[in-house]
């Protein structure tokens, strides 16, 4: 086993060697501009792009013409929200989203609010799920867009997207779904789920960084978007700019592979995840699962370890690449807004670790991580005044903490 162990797949994933191999000819040899109509270099590039577009569309049950290439999910989210608001401003001025969305959606919504758009930020349950009834109740005559993510990047909770899609259809409101963490990991069908716009990105699914897509429905209804950039009118006028052909080829190949291996891969990673969950919980005690127990991404595990602060826990396991919900590194001292929105006390939010399993993790690595987590939590609990107080029978919630 090679150290360090990578277990942070919600952050990014390595390029699958098969995707890399597919990309390589398109850097120097087949370098044409896909928009060049007058020579074979351009035709060759265009053909590669269209073939990738078809691979991507197939994975999400869309028509290739409904795929708009972007630089990644952040741009896709921006394009979806800003593009719809600008295009449908006459129809209404109200958006619905949720408090646990990614910053690319939340901060875009905040900017739109400054421009006079009304935004409803729906709360989530303690499992991190958006309630479809709450979506239904939030819809007004002025609502033009619902933007709810498929799966959360921190806690892995999967939202009832199909139900939300059905409600959106009933009320004639567009539904944008940020599916960055879900595409390539769980089955996604834009038809069955009633999705009108969907953001996703290549590098979370073993493709290269720097390319993503926005699915834009072409019929029932035909969604129109104002572009973010002015320029050559690429991507049906929705996203000007020369297409990054090698990246798109890698993205396409990554989607093809994901479609082929998804069933086997998700079962294997879910087994690893459950092994980690049960072994760690049973051995240590006072470990809490964040997110939904079953409606969650197969490769996501998010745990809070009582009496231990997340960042110090990561520091003790330097040879494992993980992520913490503690924000001790930021000046705000605010822990994860996702965990807080779920009603997790700030103390447990500070104590959370996100494990993101991936295609290349082995069982040996999983066992290693389990061992190191147990060892480090034990060591830090011995060092923790909170653990000592709890063992003396003091209820930490009744302590009058002096906060300056």
């Amino acid at each position, binding site marked *: 086993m090679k150290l360090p162990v990578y277990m942070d797949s919600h952050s990014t994933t390595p390029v699958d060697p098969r995707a890399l191999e597919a990309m390589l000819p398109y850097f120097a040899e087949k370098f044409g501009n896909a928009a060049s109509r007058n020579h074979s270099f351009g035709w060759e590039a265009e053909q590669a792009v269209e073939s990738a577009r078809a691979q991507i569309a197939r994975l999400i049950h869309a028509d290739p013409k409904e795929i708009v290439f972007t630089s990644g999910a952040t741009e896709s989210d921006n394009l979806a929200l800003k593009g719809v608001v600008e295009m449908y401003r006459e129809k209404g001025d109200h958006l619905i989203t949720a408090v646990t969305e990614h910053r690319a959606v939340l901060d875009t919504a905040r900017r739109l609010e400054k421009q006079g758009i009304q935004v409803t930020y729906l709360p989530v349950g303690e499992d991190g799920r958006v309630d479809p009834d709450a979506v239904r109740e939030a819809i007004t005559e002025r609502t033009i867009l619902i933007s709810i993510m498929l799966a959360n990047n921190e806690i892995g909770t999967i939202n009832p997207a199909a139900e939300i899609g059905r409600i959106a259809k009933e009320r004639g409101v567009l539904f944008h779904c940020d599916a960055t963490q879900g595409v390539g990991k769980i089955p996604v069908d834009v038809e069955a789920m009633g999705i009108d716009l969907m953001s996703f990105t290549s590098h979370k699914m073993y493709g290269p960084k720097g390319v993503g897509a926005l699915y834009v429905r072409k019929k029932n209804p035909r969604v129109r978007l104002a572009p973010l950039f002015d320029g050559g009118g690429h991507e049906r006028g929705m996203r000007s700019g020369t297409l990054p052909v090698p990246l798109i080829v890698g993205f396409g190949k990554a989607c093809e592979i994901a479609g082929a291996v998804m069933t086997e891969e998700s079962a294997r990673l879910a087994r690893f995840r459950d092994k980690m969950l049960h072994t760690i919980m049973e051995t240590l005690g006072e470990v809490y699962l964040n997110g939904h127990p079953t409606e969650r991404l197969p490769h996501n595990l998010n745990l809070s370890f009582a*009496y*231990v*602060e997340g*960042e*110090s826990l990561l*520091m*003790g396991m330097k040879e494992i690449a993980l992520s913490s919900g*503690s*924000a*001790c*590194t*930021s*000046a705000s*001292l605010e*822990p994860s807004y996702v965990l807080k929105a779920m009603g997790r*006390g*700030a*103390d447990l939010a*500070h104590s959370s670790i996100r494990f993101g399993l991936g295609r290349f993790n082995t069982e040996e690595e999983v066992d290693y991580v389990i061992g190191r987590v147990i060892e480090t939590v034990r060591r830090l609990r*011995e*060092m*923790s*005044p*909170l*653990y*000592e107080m709890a063992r003396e029978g003091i209820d*930490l919630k009744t302590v009058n*903490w*002096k*906060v*300056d």
Partner: protein
Amino acid sequence: MAYSEKVIDHYNNPRNMGSLDKSDPQVGTGIVGAPECGDVMKLQIKVGPDGVIEDAKFKTFGCGSAIASSSLATEWLKGKNVEEARQIKNTDIVEELCLPPVKIHCSVLAEDAIKAALSDYQKKHQESETAQAVEAKA
């Protein structure tokens, strides 16, 4: 984030980690911070009859810099008298551990913990002196 070598050393080899008997009249205990803020430090000193701190212990819930700040504080406290101990400033800890701006609050917390432990000791000490004085009168 990258930690300084000194922070890593204190984290890996904490000095004086543990607890003293808080009911001992010679022991001063300071607990500062709050779990909601992600930092809680417990710092204890044991003062000898000559007024010199003969032992110091800490327990900390918090990031590596918080652990290092309290570990360093116990090292510095030992051998100082109460007045000297009061002179330890958070800026000295920042300098010694090369803490970045986002971690300065860890050093502030350590200084608060020192002050809290000293106050607790002095309060107890005065109480026991008063008690002795009352006993002597009677």
